[in-house]
């Protein structure tokens, strides 16, 4: 039984330049305790999809045009603001890329940590304080008892991200949405934070949706991966099979353009052209214009994800028909 199942989500932005189809028919699900990675380049809709679920899309210009998001029997997209507030920060938490802009610079860390507990009526102030201190220790902040009285600017980038994690997890949520949580950090600090999220996840048995553009981080962190391109999921499957047996030309090209995997001295593989303009309606596959394996069938209809084998799905019509072997 899936903890969260999203079906045909469409989020459009009605701007002066036209309607931007940021998320255009996305379906996926997350099981209890599992880690789902969502990868894609900037503008692919990976963040907008998750923000839509949490009711964090500015409306206007944003609008959720269609879709359902079933979270434990309730549809997140149909909830009123009041109902959403019961879920957000309590059963579903979020951490963001930049911990400096997501913490309140005027409040002591302690006051920010206990806020979710007090707001949701989960504890009185004294218990909340005790719990906050415990969380600070759990996320590995040394000298937690004194540091909890400090302001965010007194912490380093990595420490701030630890505070963010403590704050997100203090209500012991069922689902954590992590939007590029380590992108702003140095690699050695990134390694610490990833380790921490993993440990906390196992301790609390929560599910994690991990949004990232970094295929390296996702490889080691996620059980399953969705690859997004131009507002749609083009490939979805278990991490191993996404990396070792790509079955969408975009994913294959992406894998081949990462420097780490290529023998030195060779030219890096590149994807020609640019992602499509999302204000213009797309006929056929969104990747067709840049795809090396494009044929006439690609420019017709709207390719849907289809499972090929063992939960591995692709939206490539040519692979679905068996006319294309990748890698």
């Amino acid at each position: 039984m899936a903890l969260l199942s999203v079906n045909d989500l469409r989020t459009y932005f009605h701007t002066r330049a036209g309607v931007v189809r940021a998320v255009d028919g996305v379906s996926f699900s997350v099981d209890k305790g599992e880690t789902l990675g969502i990868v894609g380049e900037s503008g692919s809709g990976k963040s907008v999809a998750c923000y839509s679920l949490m009711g964090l899309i500015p409306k206007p210009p944003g609008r959720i045009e269609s879709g359902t998001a079933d979270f434990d029997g309730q549809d997140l997209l149909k909830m009123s603001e009041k109902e959403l507030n019961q879920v957000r920060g309590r059963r579903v938490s979020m951490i963001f890329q930049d911990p400096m802009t997501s913490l309140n610079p005027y409040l002591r860390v302690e006051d920010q940590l206990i806020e979710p507990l007090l707001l949701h009526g989960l504890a009185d102030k004294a218990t909340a304080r005790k719990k906050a201190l415990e969380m600070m220790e759990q996320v590995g902040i040394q000298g937690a008892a004194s540091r909890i009285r400090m302001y965010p600017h007194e912490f380093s980038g990595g420490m701030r991200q630890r505070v963010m994690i403590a704050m997100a997890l203090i209500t012991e949520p069922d689902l954590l949405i992590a939007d590029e949580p380590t992108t702003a950090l140095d690699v050695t600090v990134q390694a610490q934070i990833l380790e921490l999220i993993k440990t906390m996840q196992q301790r609390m048995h929560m599910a994690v949706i991990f949004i990232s553009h970094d295929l390296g981080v996702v490889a080691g962190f996620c059980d399953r991966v969705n690859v997004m391109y131009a507002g749609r999921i083009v490939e979805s499957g278990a991490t191993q099979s996404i990396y070792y047996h790509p079955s969408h030309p975009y994913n294959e090209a992406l894998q081949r353009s990462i420097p780490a995997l290529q023998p030195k001295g060779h030219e890096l593989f590149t994807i020609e052209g640019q992602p499509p303009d999302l204000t213009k309606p797309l006929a056929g596959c969104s990747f067709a214009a840049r795809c090396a394996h494009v044929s006439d069938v690609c420019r017709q209809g709207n390719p849907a994800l289809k499972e090929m084998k063992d939960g591995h799905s692709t939206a490539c019509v040519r692979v679905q028909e068996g006319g294309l072997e990748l890698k």
Partner: protein
Amino acid sequence: MTSETAIPFLDIKGLKTHFPVEKGIFFRKTVATVKAVDGVDLELKQGEILGLVGESGCGKSTLGRTMLQLLEPTAGSVRLEGRELVGLRGSELRAARKDFQMIFQDPYASLNPRMTVYDTLAEAILAHKSVPKKQMPDKVAELMNKVGLSPRFIKKYPHEFSGGQRQRIAVARALAVEPRFLVADEAVSALDVSIQAQIINLLAKLSREMNLTLIFISHDLSVVKHIADRIAVMYLGRIVEIGPAESLFDDPQHPYTRALVSAVPVPDPDRERERQRILLPGDPPSPLNPPKGCTFHPRCPHAVEACNASFPAWSQQGDRQVACIRLGEFE
């Protein structure tokens, strides 16, 4: 570094860049010094690509800027083919700058939004030599072709281009003066993977074709490994290890390099799961108040009492130079 009989193309000795921290409104006095670059020696051959890696705040950008005399060094010398650059002023410095150029991280901020591609590139060309107005469009088109931009975009403004294309314009502008030495400071960090690959290929190709010496500054080790001949690893204002790119990556010697290499995520699920990470405690210390002795010792898993004493001298270790006194004493 193997000292050759000829003068090295670029020769940096004892380079230091310190920034004073001042306090007070009426009587400003220096209360502390940020030692952003604190004693760097470096030699480069012509046509070589050196990757400069390190975490934020380690001084890699400051080093790059100081080399190009965009910042005035506190001490040390920078010689380009034997000619001292430190201390050059005014027209002398401007004339010398034809030989070295820089590419910045953010192609959105480094291009003038009110200038067309033609204006941007023509201005740069004119800074170098006088070109009759009639020939200018051809010159500009030639530059654009060199970086893989179609000359039909010549009249367009920066906002009409994507990030990757803008970075191509920035590269073209740097090449306009026909430099021999280029510093690329996080030139691909703001770009998506597929676009990043295009710019890396471009820089590698240009360096090969024009025998351009390139210092490629980046926090992304896998990118640097791909493009660079040699890699220098910086920590708190100093180079702690330098050597051939592949061997440094495959067999790092300095404890910091080891931790850094082990922390780089590899896009390979099986390898990623098996890998043993060396998790360093804490964050890099502030360059305002760097630790005594070896600056890495408070975070180093192999530190001993002696590491406190002074910053270690270089020792040759195969094809590598490493600043660590305990080499060979740990596994």
